[in-house]
């Protein structure tokens, strides 16, 4: 086992007394053992005086080297005797990085009166006492001097982080590459190592200061000015468009120009009376003749609203959602259902992504999870995964290919999975003989054909799938896009791109794995992100199989699985967004059919590919509910409810509107709303449950109307005729569960729909 030197800083001092003469100079180094994870790297401080000449030279050279390496970690082999000897030296200490709790970085004074220093805090209190403060004497440290010189030459005395450079920053940059290091908000000099979410939230106090009980007045004021702003903005947009289009004379322009509202706007651009009039129901009726423009209008309105939201968000980040809670989610201080501060700060703090270092910090030296699964999911749900390589690992866990309680060794031994894919499915397919039943044979061919057709046109704008060449690269390295194909005949083009082939293989194998369901259009969309992230055919296959457990219900022949979700969503909507629900009713859209595509492939067609990955990752945690996609859908409805209610009134219009949302939505914002909606939903359900119990306890009593939500009524005679409480709906109940809903396709027969 060899030891590697990852980092070294010379001229770091311990000041045992106030006398400068007592200061002890030494090296601060980080080392690692070959086969251990970065988390197991060790930080050691060695007094210079304890080293022999050769050792000191080695470390001094290393210091200079790191000083010039722009903060990259080193990997040079080191004689481990230095470390062994260090143990016995006075003042020396060492600590494994994962045992650190926090680091304090205290900058040097600008005028050089005192040195910059760091204080290390261990997770175990006993150890904490043995670690002295380390002072960075940059004025005599070769690497710090060199760096300062270079920064000064480029006229920027600042380091990358914008701070004035000092030696401690080199150390911080190095350690950041090894463990997760997060700056706290309360105490900017304090950085947490591998912080738990609880720590992060505790150290992030800006949420806690504000109370959700904003005074009504203040709120109303901000609300009305808010709508004023929106209204006038909308007004501006309309007249601006009318203006622009009168010059271009396109058809759409013509159409817009004919819109009575626009005409009015043009003629009376600053007449408050006209504005008032537009709210008149008569005017609304006039509009009805002009249906298509309404969809345009609705989109403008949303666009404007989104801009205003953005503005609002950027300027008053925290209070934005708090106000939203009250104005749009009907959450006020009088409501029975209250958010606790904790719930709020949890939902509103979405800024701690899971980095590579963070992810590694979740595991012990055996590579076993050292947090609870729920804690890990909390991280993923609230922060997402930051980089691509980490995402691959995380998804293998989220999709249950890696068991949560497995060790690193056990995970390496997943070859059995690979074998099983190759032998049980892929080979079976490749060596398949013709089925004796011609009908079955025809079905099989049909499925193959369907899969090929869909793979061929799946996400072809992504570089991974773009070129149909054997190595998947652009055939002409000059970057000229190739002509379609040799013979320009895309129709019978054979698949060559290895990644497209992998997609095809996986889908064909899944067709064997689940013969009742088979391949259904849309599945290629579901597989594509998984393969993109996992990049391994066999592992992706198993990920997909597990993913399909929960997604199978979307593809059933009788559409019952999708229907169940729409029913649940309808009930949710009635419960939480009653105004919108009522309006959709009027539009003949109460079945929420327009959500079909979004639910079927989990918003794949409404967002950019990377965004889709981020969204799915959150759904896959089942952190609140295994059907969180419905809350996300609900958030989309909620977000769009204003423009829909104001502008749309027919089935086709609503369908058209929700069909055209691609590229208009901010998924982060929607995710926060989803979470708030969920929490609210859970509380409402709780309140109703309590209510139900109460009602059961005191039968036939007329005086039991408590302050809860009045969702049940007494009939005229005052008898407790229980209106079905929503909390008893099995659809709504199922939304509180974290267990995935599995609905299987029935056996396939000759007459089954393909």
């Amino acid at each position, binding site marked *: 086992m060899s030891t590697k030197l990852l980092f070294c800083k010379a001229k770091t001092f311990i000041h045992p007394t106030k006398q400068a003469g007592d200061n002890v100079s030494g090296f601060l180094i980080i080392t690692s053992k070959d086969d251990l994870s970065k988390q197991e790297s060790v930080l050691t401080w060695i007094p210079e005086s304890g080293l022999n000449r050769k050792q000191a030279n080695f470390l001094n050279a290393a210091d200079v080297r790191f000083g010039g390496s722009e903060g990259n970690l080193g990997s040079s082999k080191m004689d481990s005797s230095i470390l062994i000897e260090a143990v016995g030296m006075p003042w020396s200490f060492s600590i494994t990085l994962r045992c650190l709790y926090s680091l304090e970085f205290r900058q040097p004074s600008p005028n050089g009166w005192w040195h910059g220093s760091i204080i290390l805090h261990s997770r175990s209190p006993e150890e904490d006492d043995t670690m002295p403060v380390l002072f960075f004497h940059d004025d005599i440290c070769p690497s710090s001097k060199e760096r300062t010189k270079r920064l000064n030459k480029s006229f920027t005395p600042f380091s990358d982080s914008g701070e004035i450079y000092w030696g401690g920053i080199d150390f911080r940059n190095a350690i950041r590459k090894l463990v997760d290091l997060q700056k706290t908000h309360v105490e900017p000099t304090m950085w947490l190592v591998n912080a738990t979410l609880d720590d992060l939230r505790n150290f992030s106090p800006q949420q806690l200061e504000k109370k959700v009980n904003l005074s009504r007045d203040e709120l109303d004021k901000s609300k009305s000015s808010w709508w004023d702003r929106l209204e006038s903005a909308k007004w501006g947009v309309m007249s601006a468009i009318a203006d622009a289009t009168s010059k271009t004379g396109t058809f759409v322009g013509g159409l817009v120009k004919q819109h009575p509202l626009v005409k009015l706007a043009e003629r009376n651009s600053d007449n408050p009376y006209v504005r008032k009039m537009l709210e008149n129901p008569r005017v609304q009726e006039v509009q009805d003749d002009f249906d298509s423009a309404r969809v345009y209008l609705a989109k403008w309105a949303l666009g404007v609203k989104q801009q205003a939201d953005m503005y609002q968000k950027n300027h008053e980040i925290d209070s934005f959602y708090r106000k939203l809670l009250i104005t749009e989610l009907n959450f006020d201080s009088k409501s029975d259902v209250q958010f606790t501060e904790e719930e709020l700060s949890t939902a509103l703090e979405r800024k701690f992504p899971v980095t590579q270092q963070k992810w590694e910090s979740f595991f012990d030296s055996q590579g076993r999870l050292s947090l609870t699964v729920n804690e890990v999911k909390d991280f993923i749900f609230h922060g997402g995964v930051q980089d691509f390589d980490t995402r691959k690992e995380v998804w293998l866990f989220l999709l249950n290919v890696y068991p949560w309680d497995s060790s690193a060794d056990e995970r390496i031994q997943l070859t059995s999975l690979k074998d099983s894919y190759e032998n049980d499915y892929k080979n079976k397919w490749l060596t398949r003989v013709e089925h004796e039943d011609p009908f079955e044979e025809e079905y099989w061919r049909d499925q193959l054909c*369907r899969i090929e057709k869909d793979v061929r046109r799946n996400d072809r704008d992504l570089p991974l799938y773009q070129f149909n060449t054997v190595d998947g690269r652009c055939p002409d390295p000059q970057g000229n896009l190739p002509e379609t194909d040799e013979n320009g005949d895309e129709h019978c083009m054979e698949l060559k791109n290895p990644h497209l082939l992998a997609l095809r293989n996986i889908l064909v194998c899944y067709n064997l794995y689940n013969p009742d369901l088979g391949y259904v259009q849309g599945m290629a969309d579901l597989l594509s992100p998984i393969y993109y992230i996992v990049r391994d055919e066999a592992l992706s296959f198993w990920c997909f199989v597990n993913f399909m457990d929960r997604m199978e219900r979307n593809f059933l022949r009788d559409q019952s699985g999708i229907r169940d979700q729409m029913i649940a969503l309808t009930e949710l909507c009635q419960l939480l967004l009653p105004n919108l629900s009522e309006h959709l009713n009027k539009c003949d859209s109460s079945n929420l059919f327009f959500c079909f595509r979004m639910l079927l492939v989990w918003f794949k067609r409404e967002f950019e590919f990377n965004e889709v990955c981020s969204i799915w990752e959150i759904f896959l945690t089942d952190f609140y509910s295994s059907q969180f996609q419905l809350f996300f859908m609900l958030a989309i409805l909620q977000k769009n409810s204003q423009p829909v209610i104001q502008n749309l009134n027919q089935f086709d219009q609503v369908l058209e509107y929700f069909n055209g949302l691609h590229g208009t939505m901010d998924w982060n914002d929607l995710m926060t709303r989803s979470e708030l909606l969920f929490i609210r939903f859970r509380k409402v359900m709780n309140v109703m449950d309590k209510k139900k119990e109460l009602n059961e306890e005191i039968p036939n009593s007329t005086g039991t109307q408590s302050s809860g939500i009045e969702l049940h009524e007494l009939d005229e005679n005052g008898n407790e005729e229980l209106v079905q409480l929503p909390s008893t709906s099995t659809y709504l109940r199922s939304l509180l569960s974290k267990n995935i809903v599995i609905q299987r396709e029935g056996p396939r027969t000759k007459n089954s729909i393909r």
Partner: protein
Amino acid sequence: MFQFKLVLLGDSSVGKSSIVHRFVKDSFDDFRESTIGAAFLSQTIKIRDTSSDSTEDTVIKFEIWDTAGQERYKSLAPMYYRNANAALVVYDITQQDSLSKAQNWVNELKNKVGDEDLIICLLGNKLDLCDSSDNGDKRAVMTDEAKVYAEEQDLLFYEVSAKTGQGVKDVFQSIGEKLYQIKKEEMLSKKGRQAASAKDSVNVKLQRPSTNDPTSCCY
């Protein structure tokens, strides 16, 4: 201005989306993604009214619903074709099977919509793959076979190529003219009956009463 609702039906991958994009954007993409649920697009055309003495063209607007082809999603189609003024039933000339799928659609439309005024147009696509001078001819459905069927059923019939654009505009043009004709007759007869108020026919949206249950798919 008149607006008409138009829906495209037909087996997966016959080129419905490609046809719509050729018509609306005059573009073609070899790798257009498969349709899930349905897609909405709109486009306008001009109609010259030869019977009237006005020299002005009439503008009509198509609201086009392009649906997903796989049979599995067939039960959703009524949501999209309800209130349609015209249906384009597409098959792939190089795939015999796709014609029988198209015929199923024609039957369904006739049974479920049961409206005389619904214009149904049978469209054979991918004509570019059928070059008889070349031995790479992939034609699997003979023009006559489809034509005879279309005449029997009283459908409009065309063969087109979304890839080259051949014939695509004509299809929409003739459907537009036909719809306009019907609309005009409708208005004239109305005028005859109640000799009034038809003058301001500027903003007319054709809405035919729905004859099928809109919620039949899911509830």
